[in-house]
């Protein structure tokens, strides 16, 4: 049983070595951080989640949906590995919070909490009205599209951005990480980023 615990990461190493070797860490840092429009969503505990909750710390936002069988679980497991490493490298206080923006509220909301707990109990899951989701998605220059084959289609799919968005402590879009990414090198990049930010904050 224990040997299967690091399963996804190990399996990726075994089955798809290229996916982890060629990391695109820090693929894009914007020359000017971009303001995020105000939005009003709800976290997995039923608490309000707005722009204010993005302030004062670094965040990583990933867009997805809980019925996603392949890319989302892979990315969430990968980000859990990044978080674990970041906690060691940068410390829990500085490590970015991981936020999952669930864009399929009809299927996501009911079990978002237990879904995210499976990967990492520290994950924050947010969702809400389509208009509010769309506001945040637009601010991130991101994309999603729900494709139903019929009104009764229950197994519909959602296309969505595969990028992890980096939000700075001023709640601005700072950069993005494009998959496939290596948990180790991604954590090193982010640890350097948040540590540098903390040093700058301490300078007079």
């Amino acid at each position, binding site marked *: 049983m224990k040997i299967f615990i*690091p*399963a996804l990461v190990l399996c990726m190493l075994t089955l798809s070595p290229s996916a982890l070797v060629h990391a695109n860490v820090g693929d894009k840092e914007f020359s000017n951080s971009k303001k995020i429009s105000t939005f009003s969503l709800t976290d997995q505990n039923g608490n309000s989640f707005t722009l204010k909750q993005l302030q004062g710390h670094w965040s990583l936002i990933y867009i997805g949906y809980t*019925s996603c069988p*392949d890319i989302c679980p892979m990315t969430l497991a990968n980000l859990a590995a990044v*978080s674990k490493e970041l906690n060691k490298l940068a410390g829990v206080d500085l490590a970015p919070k991981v936020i999952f923006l669930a864009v399929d509220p009809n299927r996501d909301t009911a*079990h978002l909490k237990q879904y995210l707990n*499976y990967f990492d109990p520290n994950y924050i899951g947010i969702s809400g009205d389509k208009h509010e989701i769309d506001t945040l998605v637009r601010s991130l220059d991101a*994309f999603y599209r729900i494709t139903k084959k019929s009104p009764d289609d229950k197994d519909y*799919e959602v*296309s969505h951005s595969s990028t992890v968005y980096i939000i700075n402590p001023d709640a601005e879009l700072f950069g993005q990480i494009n998959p496939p990414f290596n948990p180790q090198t991604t954590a090193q990049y982010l640890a350097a980023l948040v540590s540098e930010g903390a040093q700058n904050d301490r300078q007079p």
Partner: protein
Amino acid sequence: MTGNRDKSQIFIRGLAIFGVFILLAISAGELPGPAGKLVKIDKAWSPETPPGMTMSAGYFSITNISDHKMDIVAAESPLFASIKIHKSTIENGVSSMHMVKDIVIAPRETIVFEPGALHLMMMRPTHALHADDSIPVTLDFADGTRVNFDLSVVANKAPS
């Protein structure tokens, strides 16, 4: 006279037994059964399904060890209501999936089903599946061949 009849019966019985062996040899790879006759399947696994999730994915590598093309046209499992062959793609930063009608494997070719690429999309499990469980899967080929194998369920978590 009797001796000739005995010899004749022995010859006919022998012929019948030989025929049965030939038929078995010809049909062995065509019957439902363990993989290994016409294709070789390795590294078959499925990530553990997080609570509430009604879809999962199956991954494996399949090598055609026959001397003719093998064409996967369907997959099924008693533990899922439906299985489709899907391919995830990331284009221009957008992740999406599309259904694949069939997978043609040339002789000696290996095709890998892996995260972020080809996978079995398994919908609506009969019950929650946990690490160390096995998922029986049958692959259906265009020529009528059916191949059974198991996906090992593994935890979908970072090391704790």
